[in-house]
C-alpha cells in the first residue's frame, strides 16, 4: 500500500468499507449534521450510469466521512482505490461578509489549492444557514451574498459546486427541501466521481494488462490492481462486478498455465513453480485471507496460495450472491484444475501433500456451505455437494494407503515419517477454526494419527458419500464408492464386510451388462469368498471367471485350476456335494436323438448325442455326465406304434439350444412368451388320472430375478433332483470348445421320458443345468405281436392259385427258432407250398434286416409255417399261394337262379365287384406262438365265371345252350368242356356240338356251349345237367398243381314239345297281297303233338268220353303294333289230349304299315279252372283284364328263360291278391312245351293304292 507513514486503519478491509469523503471547514458544524447526513444519504437509491456500455445500476450510496487531511490525497500512480477520497466537502455556516473575508475565504483557498495540487476535482462547498444565527445579527447581509461570493471566488462556471443547506436541524418543509436538494447533489457528485475515477482506474488497469507480454510484467501486481477494483465494486455492493474481476484474473492465470504447458512460459510463472511446502487447504471463513494476500503481494505466493486466495474471494462473493451451490461446483473444478496445473507446471509436490490439500479444501468448502445454509437446503442440493464428499473420501483413502494406515499391521517407520512430514505441511491450525471441533484440520490430523482413527473417519466419509449418492439415485456412483470400501475391507482382512459391497456392485454391472467391470468385480469377489471360506460361492465365481474371455489365459487357467483342485482333493465328508450352475462350466448347444423321432420300443436302444461347449480353458476330466429324466406313463398307444414311427419321421431330430451370452441383459429387452401346456399325471398302476393342470414350460426364464444371472453369484438355487431315471456317461474329458457326448440307454418301461437336468460331476462338484429348455422328450412304447393276412390282389379268385401276404409284427415278442404258425386248413382251401418260400424280416423302421427261407409243412388237417427267428419289434413278411377249390358252395352259387340265396353270399362284395362275382369265404384259424388264442382270418374268393343255361327247340328236337361269362380281369384257357346228365335219364344222349376242346376266354367275354338232347323213347320229364369245364389262367404256362374244373349244375323240366302253334295271314279274297288298311284274316292253328303224358296230369285235365281234354287259352299280341287285331284277340279252347289233334282260330287283323311285317305272336296258356263247386261264368273282360295282367307277368318271366316250377305259385299269389273270390287261373306253358313254328315269319303288306304317301315300316 502506498500510504507510508499513516498506519492505515485495519477496518479498511472489513465489509464496512465505504467510499471515503473528506470534510474540511467547520468541524463542529459537520459533527452536528453528520448523524442526519450519514443516515439520510443511503436512503434514496441513485441510478449509476456505467461506462463501457455496462448496464446502469441503482445503488444506495454510503460514505465514510473523514476529516480532510492532505495525506489522504493520493499521489500520482497510486493504485489504491479503497483509500481514495472520492469527494471533498467544505462545510461553513459563515453568514457575514467580514468573517468570510477574514478567515473563511483564506481557508477555502488553501483547501482548494491542496486539491488542485493533487488535481482532484471532486469537491463541494456546503453553506449551512440557520435563522437563529441571523436573528442576533444586526447588520444582516442577504444570505445569498455569501453564497454568491463563494461562487464567484471559487466555483467559476461550476456554480453547482456550492450548495446551501438551510436549517438542517429544524424540522420544516423548507429544511426538508434543502436537505433533499443537498443529498441529491451529493449523490450525483459521488457517482460522477466514481464513474470518473473508476473509469480512469480501469483504463490504467487495461493498459497494465496489455503490457503482460513485456518481460518485467508481474501477474501479482496486476492481480493487486484488479482486485482493488473488485474491492470497490464489493464496497459498492456490486458483487457481480466484483466476481467478474476475480473470474477474469482466474481465467487469465489459467490461460497462462495452459500456455506454459504448451511451451511458452512467462517468466513470472516460475514464481509459482516453486515446490509446494504448505498444503493447508482453502480458508473460506474470513472474507479476506490477509496472509495469502500479502504473499501474493510480496510475490511469494505459491500456486496453491494464489488459487486458494482467489477461490476464497470468489467464494465470499458467491455467498453474498446467495449461490452456495455454485461454490461447491467451482470448488470441485478448482481442486481438479489445481492438481492439473501443478502437473502441468511440473511443480514438485511431496507425495500426499496434494491429497491433504484437496481433502482439507473439500471439507472446508462443505463446512462453509453448511455454515450458510439450513439442513433442508443442503439435503435438496446434495447433487452439488456430493462430488466434494466423494473426492474427499478418495483423497483420504489414498492418504491412508500412503501412510500405511490400511495395512492390518499398521504403518511402518517410513510411513510414520511420511505422515509427520505431511502433518508438518499443514502448519498450525488457523485461529478461526481453532475452537471448532470438527474442523477439517482436526479431522485430518486425527485421521492420520492412528489406524483406528483413520478407519473411523474413512468409514464415516464413505458411508456418508454412499448414502448421499443413493439418496439422489446415483446408484452406480454409490456402488463404485462401495467397491473402494470393499477393497479397504479386504485390506483390513475383513472380507465379510467387503462381500456385500462387491455383491452389490456386481449386481448392477450384471444388470446392465458391463463385461469388464463384471470380470474385475468377480475377481475381487472370488478373493473375498476365498477368504470367507464360502467354498460353493468361491467355486462358482471361479468357474465363472475360468470361462470369462475377458481374462488372460493364465488367469482363466488359474481359476479353472482352483475348481479342479478342489474337486480332486479328497473331501472329508464323502456325501458332500457342491452344486454349481452348468452354464459357466459348459453350455449345451444341441441334442440329437437316434432314432431321430425319439420314439423307441421297450427294450430298444435309444442314443442321445449332446454337444457340450466347454467354457474351461483346459481339458477337464469329468467322472460322469448325467441327464436327469422324468418318467411319466402316457397310454397314448397310437403314438407308440410302429406305424407312428414310419409316419412321423422328424427331419433330423436335432434340437438346438439358444446360446446364452451371460453378461448380456437379455431379460430386459425380450421377455419370452408364456409356453403353456396341459399336463396329465396318470398313476403307473392303473392308468387312472391322478392330477391334471396347466404347466408353463419356460417358467424358469420368466420368474427369475430381474438382475438375471446375478442370482448365480449368491448361493445358487440350483436343486439337484435325482430321479430313478438317468442317462449316464462316464469318464468324459471335455476339451475346450465343443464336445460331443453320446448317451445310450435301453428303453424299459413304456411311457414318456422328459429330459430335465444335465449334470456333470467332477469329484464332489456337480455342474448342473437346472432346466433343459426347450423341452426335450423321448417315448418308449410296447406293442403286442400281430399277424395280418391279406391278399396281394384286391380280390382273390377261386379256382386258381392266389398269393396271400402274411405280416407278422413281432412287437415285444421275440420269434425263436421253431416258432411256427399253425393254420387249421379249411377243407376247400389249399395252401400250396412251393419249394422256395422266403420270408423277409424288416426292422421297426421298415429297413430290411434279413431274409430267410420259410418252411411250410402241410398235413391234412393243419399247415404249419415255421417262422424264421426274429428279434422283438421287427416285421416278418412272406407270401403264400392259396387255392380255393370250386367246391360245392362255390358251384351252389349258381343256384341263386332258383331264388334261394346263399348263406355266404356277401352283398357288399356284390356291389364292389361291379359285375357281381359270386364270392365264397374261407375261414382259417391260425395259432400264433405268442398267444394261446387262435386268430381267425377270413379270405374271400370270387368265382371268376358266371354260367347261364337255356333250352332251345326246333319242333321236337331239343338243345341246351350254356353261356360261360368270364367276370374276372384275367384271361383263361378253357379245356374239355363236358356236360353230363345226372339222375335216372338213362337213354338221354347229350351230343356236344362244340368243336375244339381248348379255347380261350378273355376277360369279361362270354363263351357258349351247346348240346343236343336225344332220346329214344319217352323222355324223362326233367333233365339234371352238370356242366364242367377245366380252366387255367391263360398267362400261366404251367401250374404246379392240377386245378379242379369249374362246374355248373342246372336242371331243365318239361322240355318236351306238346303243342305246335302256327299262325298264317291271308290277304283279302281276290288279292294276293295284303294292303295296309285292309282287313286280312289271321289263322292260328294249334296242334297237339303227343298223346297223354305225365306232364299233362293236372287240374286242367278233364276226362270226357273216350278221350281227355285240357283247357288252353290262346292270345294274339302284337307288341310292335304293326297290326290292329280286330275283335276278340284271345280265347279259351278245349284241346283234346291226343296226338295230331288240331284247333284252328280265325280272326281279322289289319296291317297298319306297308312292308314285310312280322306276324303278331300267339301265346298259349294252360287254363286252370278253380275247383270250387259253383263255377260261375265270368264275363270275359274281367278275366281278360285279369289274365292280361297275368300275361304281362308271364311275359317277363318267359324272358327269364327259367323253368316253370314256380309259375303256379307266383300266379296264384297274384290272383289271390287280385280278387277275393276264386277265379280260373292261367298258367303259361313251359317254353319247351310249345313250339311256335311261324315265329320269325313275315308277310308282305303293300301300301293301299289311294295312298299318296307310302309308309314303310322296316322291322
Amino acid at each position, binding site marked *: 500500500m502506498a500510504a507510508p507513514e499513516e498506519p492505515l486503519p485495519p477496518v479498511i478491509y472489513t465489509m464496512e468499507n465505504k467510499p471515503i469523503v473528506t470534510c474540511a471547514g467547520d468541524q463542529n458544524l459537520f459533527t452536528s449534521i453528520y448523524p442526519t447526513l450519514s443516515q439520510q444519504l443511503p436512503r434514496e437509491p441513485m441510478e449509476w450510469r456505467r461506462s463501457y456500455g455496462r448496464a446502469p445500476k441503482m445503488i444506495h450510496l454510503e460514505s465514510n466521512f473523514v476529516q480532510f487531511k492532505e495525506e489522504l490525497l493520493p499521489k500520482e500512480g497510486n493504485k489504491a482505490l479503497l483509500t481514495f477520497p472520492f469527494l471533498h466537502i467544505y462545510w461553513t455556516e459563515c453568514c457575514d461578509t467580514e468573517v468570510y473575508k477574514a478567515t473563511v475565504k483564506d481557508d477555502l483557498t488553501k483547501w482548494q489549492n491542496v486539491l488542485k495540487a493533487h488535481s482532484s476535482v471532486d469537491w463541494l462547498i456546503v453553506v449551512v444557514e440557520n435563522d437563529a444565527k441571523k436573528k442576533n445579527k444586526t447588520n444582516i447581509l442577504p444570505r445569498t451574498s455569501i453564497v454568491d461570493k463563494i461562487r464567484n471566488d471559487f466555483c467559476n462556471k461550476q456554480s453547482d459546486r456550492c450548495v446551501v443547506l438551510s436549517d438542517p436541524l429544524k424540522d420544516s418543509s423548507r429544511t426538508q427541501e434543502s436537505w433533499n436538494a443537498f443529498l441529491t447533489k451529493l449523490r450525483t457528485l459521488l457517482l460522477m466521481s466514481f464513474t470518473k475515477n473508476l473509469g480512469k482506474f480501469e483504463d490504467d488497469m487495461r493498459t497494465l494488462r496489455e503490457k503482460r507480454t513485456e518481460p518485467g510484467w508481474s501477474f501479482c501486481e496486476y492481480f493487486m490492481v484488479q482486485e482493488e477494483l473488485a474491492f470497490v465494486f464489493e464496497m459498492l455492493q456490486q458483487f457481480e462486478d466484483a466476481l467478474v474481476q476475480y473470474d477474469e484474473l482466474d481465467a487469465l492465470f489459467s490461460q497462462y498455465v*495452459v500456455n506454459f*504447458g504448451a511451451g511458452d512460459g512467462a517468466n513470472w510463472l516460475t514464481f509459482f513453480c516453486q515446490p509446494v511446502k504448505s498444503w493447508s487447504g482453502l480458508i473460506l471463513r474470513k472474507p479476506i485471507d490477509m496472509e495469502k494476500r500479502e504473499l501474493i503481494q510480496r510475490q511469494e505466493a505459491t500456486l496453491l496460495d494464489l488459487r486458494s486466495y482467489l477461490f476464497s474471494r470468489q467464494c465470499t462473493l458467491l455467498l453474498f450472491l446467495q449461490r452456495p451451490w455454485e461454490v461447491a461446483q467451482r470448488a*470441485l*473444478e478448482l*481442486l*481438479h*484444475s489445481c*492438481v*492439473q496445473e501443478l*502437473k*502441468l507446471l511440473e511443480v514438485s509436490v511431496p507425495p500426499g501433500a496434494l491429497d491433504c490439500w484437496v481433502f482439507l479444501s473439500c471439507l472446508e468448502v462443505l463446512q462453509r456451505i453448511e455454515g450458510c445454509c439450513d439442513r433442508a437446503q443442503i439435503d435438496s442440493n446434495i*447433487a452439488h455437494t456430493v*462430488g466434494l464428499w466423494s473426492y474427499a473420501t478418495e483423497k483420504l483413502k489414498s492418504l491412508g494407503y500412503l501412510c500405511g494406515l490400511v495395512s492390518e499391521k499398521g504403518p511402518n517407520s517410513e510411513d510414520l515419517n511420511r505422515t509427520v512430514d505431511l502433518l508438518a505441511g499443514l502448519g498450525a491450525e488457523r485461529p478461526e477454526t481453532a475452537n471448532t471441533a470438527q474442523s477439517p484440520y482436526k479431522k485430518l490430523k486425527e485421521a492420520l494419527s492412528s489406524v483406528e482413527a483413520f478407519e473411523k473417519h474413512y468409514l464415516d466419509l464413505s458411508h456418508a458419500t454412499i448414502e448421499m*449418492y443413493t439418496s*439422489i*439415485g*446415483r*446408484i*452406480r*456412483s454409490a456402488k*463404485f464408492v462401495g467397491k473402494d470400501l470393499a477393497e479397504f475391507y479386504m485390506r483390513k482382512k475383513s472380507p465379510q464386510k467387503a462381500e456385500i459391497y462387491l455383491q452389490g456392485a456386481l449386481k448392477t*454391472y450384471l444388470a*446392465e*451388462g*458391463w*463385461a*469388464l*467391470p463384471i470380470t*474385475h468385480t468377480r475377481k475381487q469377489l472370488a478373493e473375498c469368498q476365498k477368504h470367507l471360506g464360502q467354498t460353493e460361492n468361491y467355486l462358482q465365481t471361479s468357474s465363472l471367471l475360468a470361462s470369462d474371455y475377458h481374462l488372460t489365459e493364465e488367469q482363466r487357467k488359474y481359476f479353472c485350476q482352483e475348481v479342479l483342485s478342489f474337486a480332486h482333493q479328497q473331501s472329508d465328508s464323502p456325501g458332500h456335494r457342491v452344486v454349481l450352475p452348468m452354464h459357466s462350466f459348459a453350455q449345451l448347444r444341441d441334442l440329437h436323438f437316434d432314432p431321430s423321432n425319439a420314439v423307441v420300443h421297450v427294450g430298444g436302444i435309444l442314443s442321445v448325442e449332446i454337444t457340450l461347449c466347454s467354457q474351461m480353458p483346459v481339458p477337464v476330466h469329468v467322472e460322469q455326465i448325467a441327464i436327469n429324466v422324468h418318467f411319466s406313463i402316457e397310454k397314448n398307444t397310437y403314438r407308440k406304434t410302429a406305424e407312428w414311427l414310419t409316419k412321423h419321421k422328424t427331419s433330423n431330430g436335432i434340437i438346438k439350444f439358444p446360446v446364452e451370452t451371460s453378461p*448380456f*441383459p437379455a431379460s*430386459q*429387452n425380450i421377455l419370452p412368451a408364456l409356453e403353456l401346456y396341459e399336463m396329465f399325471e396318470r398313476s403307473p398302476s392303473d392308468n387312472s388320472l391322478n392330477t391334471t393342470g396347466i404347466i408353463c414350460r419356460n417358467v424358469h426364464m420368466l420368474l427369475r430375478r430381474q438382475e438375471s444371472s446375478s442370482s448365480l453369484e449368491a448361493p445358487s438355487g440350483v436343486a439337484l433332483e435325482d430321479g430313478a431315471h438317468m442317462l449316464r456317461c462316464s469318464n468324459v474329458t471335455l476339451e475346450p470348445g465343443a464336445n460331443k457326448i453320446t448317451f445310450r440307454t435301453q428303453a424299459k418301461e413304456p411311457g414318456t421320458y422328459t429330459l430335465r437336468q444335465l449334470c456333470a460331476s467332477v469329484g464332489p462338484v456337480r455342474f448342473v443345468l437346472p432346466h433343459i429348455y426347450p423341452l426335450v422328450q423321448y417315448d418308449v412304447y410296447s406293442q403286442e405281436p400281430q399277424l395280418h393276412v391279406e391278399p396281394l390282389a384286391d380280390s382273390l379268385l377261386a379256382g386258381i392259385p392266389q398269393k396271400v401276404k402274411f405280416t407278422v409284427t413281432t412287437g415285444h415278442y421275440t420269434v425263436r427258432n421253431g416258432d411256427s404258425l399253425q393254420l387249421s386248413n379249411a377243407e376247400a382251401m389249399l395252401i400250396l407250398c412251393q419249394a422256395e418260400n422266403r420270408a423277409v424280416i424288416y426292422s421297426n423302421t421298415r429297413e430290411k434286416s434279413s431274409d430267410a427261407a420259410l418252411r411250410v409243412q402241410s398235413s391234412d388237417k393243419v399247415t404249419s409255417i415255421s417262422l424264421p427267428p426274429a428279434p422283438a419289434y421287427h416285421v416278418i413278411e412272406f407270401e403264400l399261394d392259396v387255392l380255393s377249390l370250386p367246391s360245392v358252395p362255390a358251384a351252389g352259387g349258381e343256384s341263386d337262379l332258383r331264388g334261394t340265396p346263399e348263406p355266404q353270399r356277401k352283398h357288399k362284395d356284390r356291389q364292389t365287384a361291379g359285375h357281381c362275382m359270386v364270392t365264397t369265404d374261407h375261414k382259417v384259424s391260425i395259432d400264433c406262438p405268442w398267444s394261446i388264442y387262435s386268430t381267425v382270418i377270413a379270405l374271400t374268393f370270387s368265382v371268376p365265371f358266371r354260367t347261364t343255361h337255356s333250352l332251345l327247340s326246333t319242333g321236337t328236337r331239343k338243345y341246351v345252350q350254356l353261356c360261360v361269362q368270364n367276370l374276372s380281369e384275367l384271361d383263361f384257357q378253357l379245356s374239355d368242356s363236358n356236360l353230363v346228365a345226372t339222375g335216372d335219364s338213362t337213354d338221354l344222349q347229350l351230343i356236344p356240338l362244340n368243336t375244339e376242346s381248348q379255347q380261350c376266354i378273355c376277360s369279361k367275354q362270354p363263351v357258349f356251349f351247346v348240346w343236343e338232347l336225344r332220346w329214344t323213347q319217352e323222355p324223362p320229364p326233367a333233365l339234371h345237367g352238370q356242366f364242367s369245364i377245366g380252366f387255367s389262367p391263360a398267362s400261366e404256362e404251367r401250374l404246379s398243381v392240377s386245378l379242379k374244373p369249374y362246374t355248373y349244375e342246372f336242371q331243365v323240366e318239361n322240355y318236351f314239345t306238346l303243342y305246335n302253334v302256327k299262325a298264317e295271314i291271308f290277304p283279302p279274297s281276290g288279292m294276293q297281297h295284303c294292303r295296309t288298311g285292309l282287313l286280312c284274316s289271321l289263322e292260328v292253328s294249334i296242334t297237339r303233338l303227343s298223346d297223354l303224358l305225365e306232364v299233362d296230369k293236372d287240374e286242367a285235365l278233364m276226362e270226357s268220353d273216350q278221350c281227355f281234354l285240357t283247357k288252353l287259352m290262346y292270345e294274339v299280341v302284337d307288341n310292335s303294333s304293326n297290326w290292329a287285331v280286330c275283335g276278340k284277340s284271345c280265347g279259351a279252347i278245349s284241346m283234346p289230349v291226343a296226338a295230331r289233334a288240331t284247333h284252328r282260330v280265325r280272326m281279322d287283323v289289319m296291317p297298319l304299315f306297308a312292308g314285310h311285317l312280322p306276324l303278331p305272336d300267339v301265346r298259349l296258356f294252360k287254363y286252370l279252372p278253380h275247383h270250387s263247386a259253383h263255377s260261375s261264368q265270368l264275363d270275359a273282360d274281367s278275366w281278360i283284364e285279369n289274365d292280361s295282367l297275368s300275361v304281362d307277368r308271364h311275359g317277363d318271366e318267359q324272358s327269364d328263360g327259367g323253368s316253370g316250377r314256380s309259375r303256379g305259385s307266383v300266379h296264384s299269389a297274384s290272383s289271390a291278391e287280385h280278387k277275393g273270390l276264386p277265379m280260373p287261373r292261367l298258367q303259361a306253358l313251359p317254353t319247351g312245351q310249345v313250339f311256335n313254328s311261324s315265329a320269325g315269319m313275315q308277310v308282305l303288306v303293300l301300301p293301299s293304292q289311294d295312298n299318296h304317301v307310302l309308309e314303310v315300316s322296316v322291322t
Partner: protein
Amino acid sequence: MAVCIAVIAKENYPLYIRSTPTENELKFHYMVHTSLDVVDEKISAMGKALVDQRELYLGLLYPTEDYKVYGYVTNSKVKFVMVVDSSNTALRDNEIRSVSAGDWRTTPGWWMFRKLHNSYTDVMCNPFYNPGDRIQSRAFDNMVMSMMIQVC
C-alpha cells in the same frame, strides 16, 4: 483427443466402448458406467427439452481429477459418452458456461458428438447390423479412432 468413446444402449449396456491407451481400459469402463448416473439425472431433469430437441448434448457430465466426461443422448435414448483428458483443454474451456448459456452448437463437444451420432446412424442402417447388438463396424471404428487421435 478423446481417450474413451462409448455408445450405450437404451437399456444402459454398452453397445460400443473403445478407449486408449488400452491398459487402463477397465478404469474407463467404470468411469463411463458411473457417468450414466449423471446422464440419467440430466435426462430426467430436462425431460421436457428432450421432446422438442431432436438430440441432446448433455455437456460435461462430471469432472474427475484427470478426465472430463461429456455426454450426449439421442432421442431414442442411446447415449454417447466421451472421456477427455483433463490436460486437454480444447473441450474444457468455457464448456460449462456455454452449456449453461444453452448454445450447444458453439461447443466443440457438440460437433464431435454430432459426428459420432451420424456415424452411429450409418451403422444402424447397415442391413447386416441387428439393432441392440454390440457394434462391430470398421467404419465406426475408424471414425472413433480419428476422434481419439485428432488433436482439436
